[in-house]
Structures are given as C-alpha cells and as structure tokens.
C-alpha cells in the first residue's frame, strides 16, 4: 500500500529526514515514534505531499507519488490527514466539516455518509453542532470522521492525542484503533509517546535525528532493540558494562552470563547490556546486595532505584511487589533474571 524507499527531506541545509525506508500493507496501522525534532512529522508531511523529497521515492498503491523531480500535489494523492490541532473549520457545522471532502456525490449520498461516520465515531446527533461546542476528544473524532469520509487510501495522524488529557489518551487510542480496524483503514501516525504507539500500532518505527532506527512490532522493539538508542528510548532500563571472558561469556557485576556466539564479540571486548526493571528480582536469599537510593510507590508495585555495592556503583531499577516495603538506604538482596540478553559494544556513548 505505502512504501518509502530511501526518502530524504531537507530544509535549507538541514536534513530533517535521512534515508528512511519502510512499507505498510493494506489495513495495517503504523506508527513513527521518536523524540521531538527527530523528523517523524516531516516524514508524515512528505507522504501527504506538503514537503518535497530531496532523495528517494514514495509510492502509494504501487504508484509513484513522490520523488525528487516527480511531485504529486497533495490534493491528488487521496491521502487524508488528522492534524495535531484537528484544524476543524470553525464556521462549519460538524456535518458540513465531515462532508467538506466529499466530491461528486449528491446531497443524499453525502448525508448518508455523514450519518454513517457520526455513528462510527460515536457522535450520532452531533451533526448540527459547531466545533467550538465540542470537547477536545469529540473534536478529534470529528477530525477523524472528516478525514475518513472520502475513504482515503491512507490516513495520516499527526500526534493525535497530544492536546488531550492524559487520562483520556489511552481510552481514545483504543477507540481509535477499533474504528480504523473496523473500516480496514491503512493508517500511519506519529507520536513521541510510546504508550500511545503500543496501544495503537501494528508496527512501530523508532526515529532519531532523521533516521529510522528500527521498523518492527512492539514486542520486538521492547525485547530485541536493534540499537542502543532504541533500547534506551523504548521502556525503562539501564545499561551495565561488562567484559567478554575467554569462555565467550559475559562477566559483569551481577554475575556471568552466556552470550549468543553469533553476536560476534571476542574475548576482552568491552560491552554494555540492557537491564529492564523486570529483569531484577528482589530476592532476600541472594548474596548480591544493593542499596535503595530512591523509591516510587505505584500501587501494586514499588519501583526502586538501587545502587550496586560492587565496582562502579552502577544504578539499576527494580520493580518489586509492594508488600516488599523497604526504606531508603536499606540494603536488599537482588538477583538478575535475564530472559533476553541485549548486548551492545561499549563505545562510550549512550
């Protein structure tokens, strides 16, 4: 459905998007995730046709729509966009907004489609209201209905939840996913919030400094990050340093672990490996002691920040059941339980 091949976008001399390639198939929901300024919105705007490419190609339904000297105008791409600020037309009613992009239909057909969409987004009877009379979440759903009205080939969503209350976001993300799946809409959204991405997307791409670091599903992203940036950006975790010993095992402050022989690390290599909070098990039997330096109560669990008593005084996070209630400064026993070992060469940077 959508395919990007080595796409680059530049403003003046700055490369906002650098060599990005990925594909989305029909009905899939993709998500570009990354810190602000990573170029994810530029990718979205390039797909919509608001930005021209400096390199690479974009194809929709196997038809080339964007290349360096071959730019199809946005109005001809059949790609709909839901903007961050929704961009509803304030002088038109909800129904008029939704019908705005319906061309070449008579008024009965338009009316029918508008009613269909209002039902779909859960706002039946709101057709005659004006945008300013609606709440933020309702405005978002109107923007969605307007974008979906003409059955676009692809729906783009730019930070769709950023102007909504935090409590609402997860709920709306689930609703939105249900609507998109119901209509079998192919969609691509951008966000900086990984929880939104996990709740919405079938496939997620992490971007940093204009580059696409990894394009895969949420599980792989969390448990098999392809780079140190992805590992640090997705989920909580710390890197601990270790060295590879002569048995091709990894030696670190918390013990010795076997590594995948195909990883290519040699004896004496300095490496770092990722420790997630759920990898550290609180175990009173364990001889490895760590000092509690910070704690935050989260209801059923307590997230402890621990300082290892070994060399380096590295800090790790530990998610313990909340009846294991320890105070700051206490020493508690811990054990490392690594299900997936994620190792990167230690080149001194994050």
């Amino acid at each position, binding site marked *: 459905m959508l395919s990007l091949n080595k796409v680059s976008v530049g403003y003046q001399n700055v490369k906002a998007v650098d060599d990005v390639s990925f594909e989305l198939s029909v009905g899939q929901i993709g998500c570009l995730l990354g810190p602000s300024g990573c170029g994810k919105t530029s990718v979205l705007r390039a797909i*919509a*046709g*608001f930005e021209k490419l400096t390199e690479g190609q974009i194809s929709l339904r196997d038809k080339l729509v964007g290349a360096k000297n071959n730019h199809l*105008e*946005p*109005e*001809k*791409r*059949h*790609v*709909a*966009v839901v*903007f*961050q*600020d929704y*961009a509803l*037309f*304030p*002088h038109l009613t909800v129904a008029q907004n939704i019908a*705005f*992009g319906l*061309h070449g239909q008579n008024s009965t057909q338009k009316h029918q489609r508008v009613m269909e969409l209002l039902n779909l987004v859960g706002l039946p009877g709101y057709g005659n209201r*004006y945008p*300013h009379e609606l709440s933020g979440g309702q405005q978002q759903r109107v923007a969605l209905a*307007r*974008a979906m009205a*003409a059955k676009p080939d692809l729906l*783009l969503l730019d930070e769709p939840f950023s102007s909504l209350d935090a409590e609402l976001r997860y709920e709306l993300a689930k609703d939105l996913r249900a609507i998109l799946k119901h209509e079998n809409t192919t969609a691509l959204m951008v966000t900086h919030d990984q929880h939104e991405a996990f709740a919405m997307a079938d496939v997620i791409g992490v971007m940093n400094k204009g580059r696409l670091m990894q394009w895969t599903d949420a599980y792989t992203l969390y448990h098999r990050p392809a780079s140190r940036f992805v590992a640090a950006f997705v989920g909580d975790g710390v890197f601990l340093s270790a060295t590879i010993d002569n048995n091709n095992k990894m030696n670190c402050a918390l013990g010795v672990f076997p590594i995948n022989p195909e990883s290519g690390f040699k004896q004496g290599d300095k490496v770092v490996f990722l420790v997630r909070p759920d990898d550290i098990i609180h175990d009173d039997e364990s001889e490895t002691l760590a000092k509690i330096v910070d704690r935050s109560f989260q209801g059923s669990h307590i997230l402890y920040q621990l300082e290892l008593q070994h060399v380096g005084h590295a800090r790790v996070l530990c998610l313990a059941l909340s009846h294991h209630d320890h105070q700051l400064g206490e020493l508690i026993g811990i054990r490392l339980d690594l299900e997936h070992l994620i190792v990167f060469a230690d080149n001194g940077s994050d």
Partner: protein
Amino acid sequence: MKQINWLKNWFNVWFVGIAFGCFILAAPIGLVFVSVFFPQTEIWQHLYSTVLSDYIVNSLILAFGVGAIVIVIGTVLAWCIARYEFAGRKQLQWLILLPMAMPAYIIAYTYTGLLDFSGPLQSLLRETFNWQYGDYYFPEIRSLPGAIVMLSLVLYPYVYMLARTAFSEQPASLEEVSRSLGVSPSKHLFKVVLPLARPAILMGAALAMMEAFADYGTVQYFGLSTFTTGIFRTWFGLGNGLAAAQLAAMLTSFVVLLLILEYLSRRKIRYYFQGQRAQQVSRQKLVGRKAFWVPFICVIPVFFGFILPVLQLFTWALKTYSKKLTSEFWLLLWNSFYLAAIAAITAVILALLFAYGKRLNPIKPIKLLVGIVNLGYAVPGTVIAIGAMISLSWFDIKLNVLTENWFDVSVGLVFSGSLFALILVYSSRFLAVAMHNIDTGLARVKPSMDDAARSLGYKPLQILRTIHVPLMKTSVLSALLLVFVDVLKELPATLILRPFNFNTLAVRAFELASDERLMDAALPALAIVSVGILPVILLTMLMDKPSQHSTQVK
C-alpha cells in the same frame, strides 16, 4: 436583611462616582432621544414634503457605498500583505495605514482643487488637446459618488487592519486539510478563507460606515443633503433645535443598527478562533510578474489617499506660508493644542476611573453603565453637540435666573458658551478610545498580581506605584495620544460648540476651504495631517508586536 446587604454592595463611592460620570457624559445623547417626545408637527411636515427623503436616501447611499468600496480595497490589501512576501512589503505595511491621518474634509477639498475646472488636471487636458469648456466630459467631484470615493480613500484602513489579522491568524493546517481532502484552492478561498474572515471584514466595514454616517465636513463642502448637513440646516436655517435633535435621533438609530451588526460580528470572531493558537500560514514569496503587480496594487490606495493630497497641500502651503505663518496661525495652533490636551487628559482620567471602578467592583450595574458610555464613539459628533447645546443652554438660563434673583448678577453662558461644552462632548465621544487602551493595559495587570504583592507585604498605594503605574504607562500614553489627535481632527461638534471667536486648526481649515480659499487652508490642514500621523506610527508599532492579541480599533 438580604435587601440591605444587597444595597450596601452596590452603594459605594465607586458606584456613585461612576453613575454620576456616566450621567453627565450620556445626558446630551439621552436628551436627543428625549426630544422625540416633543413632536414638531409643522416642521416635520415641511421636511417630509421637501428634503427628508433626500437626507435618508443620500445618507444610506453614502454609507453603503463607502462600505462596499472599503470592503474591496481593505480585503484585497489585507490579503496581499498577509499572504504574500515581496520587496517593500514591510514599508507598505505602515504606508497603507497613513490615510487614517487624513480627515475626510481635507482630502475632499484637496481633490476639489486638483480636479476642478481650473485645477491642474483639467487645465493640462485642455492645453494638451486644445479643448474648450464643454468640449469634454469630466466627472464632477462635488457629488455623491465623489464623496463616497473621498471617504473610502481615508476609511479603508479599518477593514484592512481587521481583515489582515483575520487572514494571518488562520492556522496553516486549515489549508493543508483542504488540500489533503482534494479541495481546489478557489473552493478553499470561497468556502473557508473568506467566510472565516467575514466577521472581521464586516466589523471593519461597519466602523467605516459609522464614520460615513457621521461625516459632516465632506458632505457640507460638496453641498450634499444628508442627515448631518440637514441637522445643521434645520437648526441654523429653520431655527428649530428640537426638530434638529429629532433628526439627530433618527440618524443615531441608523448607527445603532450598524452597531448591532458590529457587535454580532465581534462575538463570532471570538468563538471562531477559540483556543486555536496553531502555526500560522507562511507567506508565499512572489516571483515574476506578480512580484511587480502586487506591490503596485497595494500602493494605489495610499497614493490617492495620502501621498497625492499631501503633495498638493505642500505645494499650496509653499506658496502661502510666508503670508500665512503669522501670529494668527500660531494662535490657531495653540488653541487646538491646549483644547486637545485638556480633552485628552479629561477623557483619560475618566477612563481610568471607570476602568478601575469596573475592576474593583465587577458588578453588573457598573459594567452596564461603563458599557453605555463606551457607545459614545458610535454617536456622530453633530448629534452629541446638539444634545449638549440644548441641555447646557437650558442649564445656563436656569442658572442665570437663579443668580439674578439671589445675587442680582448675571453669570452669562458659563457652560454652553465656554470650553466646558466642548470638553464634555469630546469626552463623551472619545471616551471609548481611551477606555479601549486603558482596559488593554489593565488586563496586563492580572488581579493575582495585586494579591501576590499584598501577600508580600505591600500596601495598596505602594502596589499602585510599583506595579500598576509601570505596567499601565504605555497604555495611558497611547490613550492620551489617540484622544488628542481625534480631538484635533474633530470638526462638526467644534463648529457648533466653540465659544465666540475661538478658532481651531480644523475649523479654520474648513472655513477657508468653504470660502474657496483652498491655498490658504493648506497650512492648517497640513498641521492636522502631520499630527495625525503620530497615532499611525503608534499603531504600526503595536501591530508589529506579535504578543499583542487584541486589535486596536481606533
């Protein structure tokens, strides 16, 4: 018990002061409407059978003609400045506002001098083509269409300013939505851009039309029969003050209709852009032929509305200044300046009183009273002047009867025959201008700041000195300046109410022009125009400040 508390809440020094101030300011206008209850059957029959329909039809044609033209000029200019980037755009931005410095009666007589039979243009045509009188057609400037063009040339900035803000505030995403939905640019223009700007455009047009209804100088100079000239004629020609006041009431009701339209537009603007603080549309850089045509089109209204008439005034002034720069001119200048200064200070002090009163006692009756006096800007100067004249002369007569009975002396016309009458009328008419600025300034001093300062141990007077005065300084100064210039330009009320033998620049320029001494009128006219430029500069500075959310109206 409850009732007593309620009374106590209302009845304090602020309320009494504000109510008294409002009463005095609104009395002249109120009186004009009261006059309706004293029917002058005979004179109305006469008016009805002769000139009344002229008054109504001409005033309406004038106002709507001006409205239509300013909408076209203002919207086109606003679009070019808001959406295109071209060489000279920055300079044009403030050049476009300059015609605001030009009172309509001055531009009217300047063009009369330029376009008359003996004027330079027709003389040139006759010489070049060897025509004689009657050989050719030339449009008569002293006509209703002429007056419409003259007023439009100086009033289009109202629409321009409001429309420009409306165009540049439309978020960029609206255009992108239309494009991604496959909507053509022209459909986007007519379905989204213009409907969204419509309230702002109509609001500007309503303001310009109010000025057109109120205009006296231009129509009088062109010899047209409209409401304002009719009021003068009824009073000074037929000698019937009450009938004049009734005509004034009729004129005011037309203005009130416009005021309602303006109010409705304003309300719409408010909800249209509720909470939308998105990225604004970036201006399109012009290349090729358009890069020449757009600045050219933008210059046309300024050229005819300011540059050309000012050049003409300059040439006249150059010929006459040696004879005219006498003590008489300096006296005119002094009269105008001190009158305007006193009026400006009075209006600003009243505005401060009302604004603080409203802030300290945010209760309905005070808000209502302040809202009523704020409507003064909509009432034509002629109307307020008539009301003031009638009420003050009645007051003077009673006062004189009193003093003659008690002290055996006659104090003369202390109110109606002195500057007091003028100051009252100016305050009543221009209070809204001052209030608008003071309110904007006061809005910057958030009530929480007062609380914060008090909790940090400051006394109310200290708070006034250390917080309010520094924050309010610029708004008070700009309020003073704007009222000062408006008073300097004001013509009809000054004509009616000035004390005997008291002349101002505006009055003198108008009298000289009416006597066909156009050249002699140039010097006082230029003085008015050059002072009038000051608020335009102020306005450009305010408009350039991006943080300024509200648009200055005057």
